């Protein structure tokens, strides 16, 4: 594998340039339909291979989680292959990709472990800093492999442990701990994103390094979900889900802080990616929290949030990493540090989607986390509320850090480049550069709105229009029951988009009607001047102008008259009362701090009086 990685420097081939897209598109489409089918049928499929399965216990396994992750990874890989030529990289980066595909499909533990360790070692080959953390991941994975058969109670220690068997059993805390360590190293949370930072510093925006970032994170989240959500159904899990939660929170905070500290563009992007993964890991922690007690209705909500967040953030960051590669290419070609305007605008749009700016998708994920936190059960009321308060505070900090980090990333080239990009915004939408990226970003925005559309169709039409439910007593009142009300940000995003579209349409129409001339091209367009001159001509314009003046000033005049008649005496009173105002002002100015302290003391006193 390392030889293959090193071969990149000598080999820039383009074999199967066009044919390779066909199987990728086919696999994406089939994966999409498969995941939809599996979501609705709740089925799992096991497929053991005839001869190799007999010899090595290799088998394939497919359920909703697999299919969803496969869809994400296929889309990501498809994008990278699509832009392969413009990124200037060869086919060899498909090796880890194929590895991850097999890993997601693998049906038993040993097959899975083997593929995962190969992936880890490949990444170790990428990071020339020779960090210790991949080996920590590998070691904890091997510990799990040694411990798990004894736990499950299978015959031999190295008999193939299929996931069908593993789903049925519950694990000891030791195994769960080591799985947590492995997945956190893979996601980049555990040595507090230092490993990933090293990789991104090494890669400087190379396609392969970005691709490995994405694959490792997806694998880590898959591992965490595979072992935590499906399997833990006993009360010992509560502690571990809380541990997952805490790791997610702290790692996200640290990554956000680092994104403000580090210097280069690629490092910032990498930090922000780790941050968004930390948010998802938080969701996983809360999801596992809800499995044990009788709160199954929140479980489906957490599942929705997780699926939505994984898809939007994975595909969104695929585009972000692609753009950072383009940035590297343009900077190398032109020899400047300035960010090319179309790239900057694309990044700006993606930052709206991913950063957690309110009505958009990133915020929806954080908002779902908040809702889950507020409904999080625990033993004692006080403990519950204190923990919830603390975690909500940290979530707020994560949101602020993410927004500031994205702002800093956008402003890497200085504010002048952003200004230039905003000037070129009309050209961005009409020009043909990065058409595919633009289409992809538009697709992501539409996908982020889709839950809102579905919600509107599925719930609002039967209840409000067809009157099929009890809550339709007030027509068009948008009455909602509790569970549906949690989908509200998407509704608001939809409403918002509609209003903006309507306003834009009106403005566009107005502009079409308007005579368009400026000083520059007034000589060129003489035909439009006619109407303007007519409207402002003396015979017509003066009367309307005078009417307008009267309209404007009549109200003010009336008020002034009233003011005068009443204010005659008011002025006298005021003169007497406010004789000593300047003394008071000087006093306050001299003793500001004392006044402030007095006010705070008064407020506290009044609070305490009310509290008593």
């Amino acid at each position, binding site marked *: 594998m390392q030889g293959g990685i090193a071969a990149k420097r000598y080999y820039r081939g383009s074999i199967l340039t066009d044919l390779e897209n066909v199987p990728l598109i086919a696999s994406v489409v089939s994966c999409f339909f498969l995941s939809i089918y599996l979501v609705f049928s709740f089925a799992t499929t096991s497929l053991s291979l005839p001869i190799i399965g007999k010899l090595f216990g290799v088998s394939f396994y497919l359920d909703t989680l697999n299919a969803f992750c496969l869809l994400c990874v296929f889309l990501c890989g498809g994008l990278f292959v699509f832009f392969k030529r413009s990124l200037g990289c060869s086919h060899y980066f498909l090796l880890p990709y194929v590895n991850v595909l097999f890993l997601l499909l693998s049906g038993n533990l040993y097959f899975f472990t083997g593929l995962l360790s190969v992936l880890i070692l490949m990444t170790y080959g990428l990071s020339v800093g020779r960090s210790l953390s991949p080996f920590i991941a590998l070691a904890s994975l091997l510990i799990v492999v040694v411990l798990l058969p004894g736990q499950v109670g299978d015959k031999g220690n190295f008999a193939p442990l299929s996931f069908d068997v593993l789903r049925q059993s519950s694990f000891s805390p030791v195994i769960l701990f080591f799985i947590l360590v492995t997945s956190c190293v893979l996601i980049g949370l555990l040595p507090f994103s230092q490993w990933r930072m090293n990789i991104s510093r090494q890669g400087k925006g190379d396609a392969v390094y970005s691709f490995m970032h994405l694959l490792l994170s997806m694998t880590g989240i898959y591992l965490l979900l595979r072992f935590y959500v499906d399997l833990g159904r006993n009360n010992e899990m509560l502690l571990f889900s809380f541990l997952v939660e805490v790791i997610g929170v702290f790692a996200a905070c640290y990554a956000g802080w680092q994104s403000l500290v580090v210097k280069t563009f690629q490092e910032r992007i990498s930090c922000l990616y780790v941050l968004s993964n930390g948010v998802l890991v938080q969701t996983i922690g809360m999801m596992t929290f809800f499995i044990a007690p009788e709160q199954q209705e929140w479980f489906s909500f957490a599942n929705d949030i997780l699926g939505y967040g994984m898809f939007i953030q994975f595909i969104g960051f695929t585009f972000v990493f692609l753009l950072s590669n383009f940035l590297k290419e343009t900077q190398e070609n032109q020899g400047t540090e300035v960010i090319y305007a179309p790239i900057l605008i694309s990044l700006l749009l993606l930052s709206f989607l991913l950063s957690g700016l309110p009505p958009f998708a990133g915020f929806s994920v954080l908002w779902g986390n908040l809702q889950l936190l507020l409904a999080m059960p625990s033993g004692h009321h006080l403990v519950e509320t204190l923990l919830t308060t603390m975690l909500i505070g940290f979530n707020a900090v994560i949101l602020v850090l993410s927004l500031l980090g994205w702002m800093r990333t956008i402003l890497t080239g200085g504010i002048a480049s952003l200004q230039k990009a905003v000037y070129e915004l009309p050209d961005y939408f009409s020009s043909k550069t990065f058409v595919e990226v633009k289409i992809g970003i538009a697709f992501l925005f539409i996908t982020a709105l889709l839950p809102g559309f579905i919600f509107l169709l599925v719930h609002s039409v039967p209840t409000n229009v067809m009157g099929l439910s009890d809550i339709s007593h007030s027509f068009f009142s948008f009455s909602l029951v509790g569970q549906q009300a949690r989908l509200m940000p998407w509704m608001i995003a939809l409403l918002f988009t509609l209003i903006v579209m309507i306003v834009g349409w009106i403005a566009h129409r107005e502009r079409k009607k308007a005579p368009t001339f400026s000083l520059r091209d007034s000589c060129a367009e003489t035909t439009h001047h006619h109407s303007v001159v007519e409207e402002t001509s003396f015979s017509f314009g003066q009367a309307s102008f005078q009417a307008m003046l009267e309209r404007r000033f009549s109200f003010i005049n009336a008020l002034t008259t009233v003011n005068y008649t009443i204010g005659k005496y008011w002025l006298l009173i005021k003169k007497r009362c406010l004789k000593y105002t300047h003394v008071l002002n000087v006093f306050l100015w001299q003793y500001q701090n004392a*006044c402030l302290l007095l006010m705070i003391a008064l407020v506290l006193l009044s609070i305490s009086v009310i509290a008593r």
Partner: protein
Amino acid sequence: MLFWLLTFVVTFLHIMMVLFLAPWVMGFQKWLEAKIQGVPAVPFWFYWGEIYSVNIKRLSSFLTSTYSYTSLLPFIALGAAIIAALLVPTFTTGMMIASLSDFLLVIALLMMVPVSFFLIALRYPSLKSLKLLQTTLVDSLLFLPVLFFILTIIRFITGGTSLDGVVIFFHQVGELPLMAYCPLLVAAFSLLFVVWDIPNFSQREGMDGFGGADRGLLLYINDVQFLVWLSLIAILMWPQSLAILQPGNDHITVWLRAVPFGFLAWVTKIFTECLLLAMMRSLLLFSNGIYRVGIAVVLSFLAIILYFAGLSGA
């Protein structure tokens, strides 16, 4: 159907009132502040006229503006402000889109406004206003923890985050539950630090460099945003004063009796907040954002502590 018509009329009246009164309230606050500080005060009934005259300029330049998507940005901000104004009840609950009026969503929409202001400032060459709006943006983002704490308090007290839920909760409890009301009051006071900076926008350095196309709109959006924040604080200050609109004949008679009082209470609360804000702005002299953020965080955390104190007392 009749009830729906009533909610529609009430919502329409509410939004019209907010949209019309917004510049007046802003002007009133600035007038009060000038009176307290002893500087020459612009009469607050001139303020609407100023915006009106600017808007006339706006119309003339709107027609000659170049084709660009960025000229739509102020309209995005206006849309966000108007939706937020629709969601925050002023004198009555049970308006047409009351089921959407979640505290978090109101915050989200109000946070859209500084972001779009910053993006609008990028269109113009004035570095002064760009710098000011960047600072405002970062400051308002730093207030997010405070807002989340207040969200938590509301959730703890009423069991939900909807604004109507707050009002209904405080109506249903027969006597005034002081221990539930006290943290809400402190939270309202900490929100006053959030709106601290909003009146600064219409000063010269804020509006420096904006063309006629956006100037009036930006002033107006800022005013609407200010009034929506004040209404939000007003709900937290005295939730019992809002009337509750529910279907049913007897409910509607009760509502009809309560509405004038609710309206009067809203006006009084807005007046009080303007006075408080003017006093704070002229006396406390915290010009830096980070101090205000710190005080607001401390106050909102104090509110949570007060909530726990109330629990132990019960």
